[in-house]
């Protein structure tokens, strides 16, 4: 039931499906970016690689081409130089043939010089000595240089002071004509515009002189080291080419060519940066192209990506909306490709989901309704249970029948919200069913008797007749005479109409005690489940009625018994008094006679008077015992407890008992511990009991011993009286203390009395216990206990 309640509570609040707006799903960035990056990587990386390789190739080709052209240039320059030198030699030969060696050689030389404008000087040297024979137009300072021309085998090009000169020779006989070509002519050879822009040609002389268009530079004063790789190669007389850094620190391509005959090296160099300028332009073109291609590719990739991802993103978003519960999402994609198929499948799936979800909602609603119904039923059960429990509680706590039924009726009426609830009880003869408790919603109470004529013919309340007759519950729907059994017309109109009623028998086993009548204004009341509940309630009420009746009867019995006791006590008291008055006369006068106050008596008279006096005393004893017994029974006998010295009490009693035993062959012994504690009890009563036991022992012991023994054990004292008398059979032992019987007298020797019966009650009143052990023929032992401490003392219970 609890589980139902839990389920129903959750069913009351079905989970609300609230579509949340999808702000960002992160899908557009994801798939699109991935695709775009992939596209770009796939285009730009190969393009860049291609561009790089191409650029590299171009660079290499350019270098190679340049070097080749530089080599060709160097060769060309050399050839040109040689050609020019040969041209000068031919001219010199021609001039030599015109030399006549007339007197004035100098004039002659100057004349010759005038013939050839390319020559700046002409020197005639003696072929054998090398001495300068004559020269033209040279200042004195320069002549020193020329003086060494004939003697030293210098190279073709030489330095004339700080200016280089080309010396051309023509030898014949013992003469040698040296023609010097000036700087300007040399320069014309060097400067050549055939080279690409920025290229330069230099002549390198022995000793590290570099002759370039910019002038003459001494590379190294020592002439042994060169900063430039090309010059270094030249100075070593090599022919070749390469890429290196030249003497002014510029990276160049260079071709070098040493002409040993001339003693001159040709160096053609082209700056690498210049050379690469062309390649750079090409590189720029390639990079630009690549970038352009990349840009176009990117744009295309973006477009393609967008075209591919947009429907996917849309699908994704819709799917996300659906996941959040909005099942009315549809994808608007009309394409024929796979995405179109996907979209159509998505829409179909969404529609099916919608249908499934609707079904589910319907099922949930249905289940919720069921749970609510179950919950309601549970509530009803709970109320019924609570009412049942309350009725049960009332039934056990209220003993007055009228109060009980009124409470129960109110309880039922309020718990089940009925219009009217009443309980009818049958009288003893079963002729009348009387409303003993009644309640309606207005709180009014109704009480009247309804005759049960012939059990069937009751008007209006025939249902009660029938229920009483066969003891079965009945439900009447469409109750003919609505609204209870009374009240004015106005009251009836004010009250809601009774539409159904139920009469439940109040039964114990098969006996019908009465009827519980319930009236309701609800059409759906009193159906199967409820009937069982009301039947169970009725059963409880029935038991409560029986209990209350039994309690009442019991209480009445107790009161009657108490009254009887009181009457008996009063009777005994009165009787005792009434009997004592004549006994006073009988005992008194017989004693007066026995004392011979009225004159002497003969033997027979004395015996007769003895009998009268003795019987009178016996009668008095019996009356006293009777009175005492009744007072003990009623609990009105006085008890006065105090701290009692048992040893003293016992010694007194023993003296009396010894007096009783006088004339019999009976010995009395006592055994009392010396450290006997004071006992909180009624000393007179204890004395009475011990005396009664001793009297009894003496009575049944004709010849023998009587032992009185006192023992202390576990907070109590045990006093026992043992005799060696006749003893008693088991059955007598059992009843001797239980029954209120006069002690049996032994052939008139002793007086009968109620000593033992009184002793038993006295001991019990003192909080002890009394019992007897006996073996027939070998005596009896009567024992009783007394608590030592006051009641409530610690450790003396």
């Amino acid at each position: 039931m609890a589980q139902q309640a839990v389920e129903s509570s959750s069913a009351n609040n079905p989970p609300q499906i609230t579509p949340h707006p999808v702000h960002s799903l992160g899908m557009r960035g994801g798939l699109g970016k991935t695709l775009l990056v992939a596209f770009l990587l796939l285009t730009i990386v190969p393009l860049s690689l291609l561009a790089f390789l191409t650029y590299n190739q171009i660079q290499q080709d350019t270098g190679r081409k340049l070097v080749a052209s530089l080599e060709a240039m160097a060769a060309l320059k050399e050839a040109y130089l040689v050609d020019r030198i040969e041209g000068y030699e031919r001219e010199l030969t021609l001039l030599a043939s015109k030399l006549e060696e007339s007197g004035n050689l100098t004039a002659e030389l100057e004349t010759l010089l005038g013939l050839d404008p390319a020559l700046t000087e002409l020197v005639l040297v003696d072929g054998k000595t090398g001495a300068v024979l004559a020269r033209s137009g040279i200042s004195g300072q320069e002549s020193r240089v020329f003086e060494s021309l004939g003697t030293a085998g210098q190279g073709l090009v030489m330095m004339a002071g700080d200016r280089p000169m080309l010396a051309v020779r023509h030898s014949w006989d013992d003469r040698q004509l040296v023609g010097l070509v000036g700087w300007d002519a040399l320069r014309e050879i060097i400067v050549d515009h055939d080279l690409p822009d920025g290229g330069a040609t230099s002549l390198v002389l022995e000793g590290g002189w570099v002759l370039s268009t910019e002038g003459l530079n001494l590379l190294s004063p020592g002439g042994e080291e060169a900063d430039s790789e090309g010059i270094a190669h030249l100075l070593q007389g090599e022919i070749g080419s390469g890429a290196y850094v030249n003497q002014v620190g510029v990276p160049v391509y260079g071709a070098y060519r040493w002409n040993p005959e001339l003693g001159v090296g040709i160096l053609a160099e082209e700056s690498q940066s210049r050379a690469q300028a062309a390649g750079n332009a090409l590189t720029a073109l390639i990079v630009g192209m690549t970038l352009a291609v990349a840009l176009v590719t990117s744009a295309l990739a973006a477009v393609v990506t967008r075209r591919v991802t947009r429907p996917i993103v849309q699908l994704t978003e819709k799917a996300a909306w659906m996941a959040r519960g909005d099942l009315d999402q549809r994808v608007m994609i009309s394409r024929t490709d796979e995405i179109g198929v996907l979209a159509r499948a998505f829409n179909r799936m969404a529609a099916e989901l919608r249908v499934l979800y609707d079904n589910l909602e319907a099922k949930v609603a249905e289940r919720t309704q069921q749970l609510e119904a179950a919950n309601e039923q549970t509530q009803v059960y709970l109320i019924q249970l609570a009412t049942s429990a309350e009725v049960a509680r009332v039934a056990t706590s209220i003993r007055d029948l009228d109060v009980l039924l009124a409470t129960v009726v109110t309880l039922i009426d309020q718990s089940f919200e009925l219009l009217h609830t009443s309980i009818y009880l049958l009288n003893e003869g079963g002729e009348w069913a009387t409303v003993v408790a009644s309640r309606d919603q207005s709180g009014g109470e109704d009480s009247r008797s309804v005759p049960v004529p012939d059990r069937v013919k009751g008007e209006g309340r025939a249902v009660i007749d029938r229920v009483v007759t066969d003891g079965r519950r009945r439900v009447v729907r469409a109750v003919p005479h609505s609204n209870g059994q009374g009240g004015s017309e106005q009251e009836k109109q004010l009250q809601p109409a009774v539409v159904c009623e139920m009469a439940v028998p109040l039964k114990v086993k098969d006996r019908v005690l009465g009827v519980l009548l319930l009236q309701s204004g609800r059409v759906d009341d009193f159906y199967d489940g409820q009937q069982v509940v009301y039947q169970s309630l009725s059963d409880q009420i029935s038991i409560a009625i029986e209990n209350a009746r039994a309690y009442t009867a019991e209480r009445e019995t107790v009161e009657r018994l108490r009254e009887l006791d009181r009457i008996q006590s009063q009777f005994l008291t009165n009787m005792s008094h009434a009997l004592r008055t004549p006994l006073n006369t009988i005992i008194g006068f017989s004693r007066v006679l026995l004392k011979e106050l009225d004159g002497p008596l003969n033997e027979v008279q004395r015996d007769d008077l003895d009998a009268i006096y003795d019987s009178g005393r016996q009668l008095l004893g019996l009356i006293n015992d009777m009175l005492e017994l009744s007072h003990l029974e009623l609990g009105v006998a006085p008890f006065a407890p105090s701290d009692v010295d048992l040893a003293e009490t016992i010694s007194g009693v023993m003296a009396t008992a010894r007096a009783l035993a006088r004339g019999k062959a009976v010995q009395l012994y006592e055994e009392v511990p010396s450290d006997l504690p004071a006992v909180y009890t009624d000393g007179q009563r204890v004395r009475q009991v011990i005396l009664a036991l001793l009297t009894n022992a003496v009575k049944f012991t004709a010849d023998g011993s009587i032992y009185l023994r006192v023992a202390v054990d576990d907070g109590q004292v045990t006093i026992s009286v043992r005799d060696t008398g006749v003893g008693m059979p088991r059955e007598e032992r059992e009843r001797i203390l239980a029954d209120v019987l006069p002690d049996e007298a032994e052939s008139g020797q002793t007086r009968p009395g109620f000593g033992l019966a009184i002793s038993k009650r006295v001991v019990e009143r003192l909080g002890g216990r009394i019992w007897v052990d006996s073996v027939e023929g070998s005596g009896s032992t009567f024992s009783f206990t007394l608590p030592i401490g006051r009641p409530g003392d610690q450790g003396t219970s």
Partner: protein
Amino acid sequence: MARDLRNLRVLIVEDNVRNYALLARLLSFMGVKQTEWKRSGWHVLEFAREAMPQVDLILLDIHLPEEDGYEVLTRLRKDERFQGTKIVAVTADITGQNLTRAQTAGFDGFLAKPIDVDLFPDQIRRILDGEVVWDLG
């Protein structure tokens, strides 16, 4: 017989004539000459001064017609004529309730019926000597 009881004046209030007779006999054996019998307390108070101007001892039954012994005792104690009189309850009612009441009422003695013939003379003498005697039978 140390005391001479011949001049002792005794009133016996008793509704049973035989019991009166017994007491009277016992008293006469003791030497008492002046014994008067009254059936009720009322009769005691009405009793003529001339007949017995001084009363030494009253033996008073508790169960009496009209007034009970306690009421009689109260009235007697108020009368100056009985100021020196020993008043002794003689009753068959020996219930604890009655005993308690008798003790507080102010009797000079209590003799239970049936009276002990052997002890009676001594008990009376002790009471006359001023001792309070309680014989519960």
